[in-house]
Structure formats: structure tokens, C-alpha cells
């Protein structure tokens, strides 16, 4: 089963709606709570990043019998230094994002921590695609 969510970057305060909607879907599908929690947290971090750094994007969620895949694709500025971005505490978030409680440099570390596999494809000026896999 595949689910699509469009994330509007114009309203940072609305970020997280896709993640909470997909969380409800997973609950309805009877997925184990521990898996739902990991998917929700990692997807939410990705969604927040998408809003605060890339003015939104699209999320595709695939639910299979043995795994859940979440693909977050944006056409934002891309990540110039991925190695730095993966480090806990590193952030280029705006003051607005920080006022919402984010920008602590925990986005990628959290996505890595809660997923079973994280792939990042990014190109400066073109965009970023994150693929998160979770084993069920």
C-alpha cells in the first residue's frame, strides 16, 4: 500500500501533519506500536527539515509485509556538507525554526537512530531525497 502526502512549506506551524496522519494509518493497519513510534519520529524529523529548510515537498509512504519505507523528496537548496549535517548538534536552521523548538541539530541523528536504514541523495540547488526503511 502506498500513501502520498504533500507538505506545504509556507506554514511551519503546520509541519507534522503528514507524520501524524500516517501514524493514524499505521494504527488502523494494526502495525506494532514500537514500529509506529519509530516511523513517526523519524518521519516527523524529516518533515520538519523539509519545511524549515526546503519550503516543503512530497512524502511517499510504502507499507509492505516486512517493512515500511518513507521517501521524503524536496526541491530545496540541497545539503552542501552532508557529513556535517549528520553530526548531532550541527544545524543551519533559521531563528523561526528555533522558536518552534527545532534547529538543535538532532534531525538526522534522530532519523538514523529510529530507522533501520537511511539513504540521503542531495544536490546543491536541486534538492534532497531521504529514504527511510523500517523493518516490521
Amino acid at each position, binding site marked *: 500500500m502506498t500513501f502520498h502526502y504533500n507538505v506545504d512549506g509556507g506554514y*511551519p*506551524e*503546520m*509541519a*507534522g*501533519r503528514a*507524520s*501524524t496522519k500516517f*501514524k493514524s494509518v499505521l494504527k488502523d493497519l494494526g502495525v506494532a506500536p514500537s514500529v509506529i*513510534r519509530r516511523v*513517526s*519520529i523519524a518521519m*516527523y*524529523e524529516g518533515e*520538519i527539515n523539509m519545511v524549515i529548510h526546503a519550503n516543503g515537498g512530497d512524502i511517499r509512504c510504502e507499507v509492505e509485509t516486512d517493512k515500511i519505507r518513507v521517501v521524503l523528496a524536496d526541491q530545496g537548496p540541497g545539503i552542501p556538507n552532508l557529513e556535517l549535517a549528520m553530526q548531532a548538534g550541527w544545524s543551519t536552521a533559521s531563528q523561526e525554526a528555533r*522558536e*518552534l*523548538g*527545532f*534547529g*538543535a*541539530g*538532532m*534531525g538526522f*541523528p*534522530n532519523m538514523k*537512530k529510529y530507522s533501520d536504514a537511511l539513504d540521503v541523495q542531495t544536490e546543491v540547488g536541486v534538492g534532497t531525497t531521504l529514504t527511510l526503511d523500517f523493518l516490521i
Partner: protein
Amino acid sequence: MKITEVQEILHAQLVTDLVEDFDVEFGYGCDLMSDVLAFVQHNDILLTGLVNPQVIRTCEVVDIHAIVFVRGKVPAQELIEIATSAGITLLCTEYSLYTSCGLLYQHGLLGEEIGHDFSL
């Protein structure tokens, strides 16, 4: 600790309906939602001075069912509605974050890292 006990200890105002009193196991005091996502693992109550919809969404994601807004912060009606639809109970207290956490701790509500003896 029951929500009504939290309310009493913090002289807090309940700003959402409490259909049924429920227990919270641990407390977590924080204004940084990224840290909430990283460290909250159990049935916690969040104490925070940050008042915006992301606080509610963050709690929804990590299954936190109760939030105390400290330092006299009062959520807007829109935020109360988001919390209500997410099944999250909101309280407000005049106490600071430090004092609020201290009072709850004094009454037996531990931080989860102590309750679970994580390596510190």
C-alpha cells in the same frame, strides 16, 4: 501520578477537558522539541515554556498525553483545539520550569532516565 495530582501540586489550570483522570509515569522538562523526540521513551508528562502547535504535534508523535505549560504561558484556542483532537491534556501553571519539575519530583514523579537507571 494522576493528572489531578499534577494539577494540585502545581496549582495548575486545566485548559482541556479531562474526560478521565489518568496516570503519567515520568516527567520531562524541555523547550527543545528535538530533544523530546530523541529522549522521551515512556509515558511522560511534558513540562515546557514553549507554546506553539509543534509542541502538540511532537507530543502526538511520541505518545505524550499531557503537557504542562509553565511560567504562566497560556495556549491559544487553536492550540487547545489541536490538543483536544489529538487526545492531549493541557495544563497551565504560573511556576517556572525549574520549580514545576522540582515540585513534581519532590512528590515522587521521577525523570525517566532516573526511573530506568540509564547510564549517566
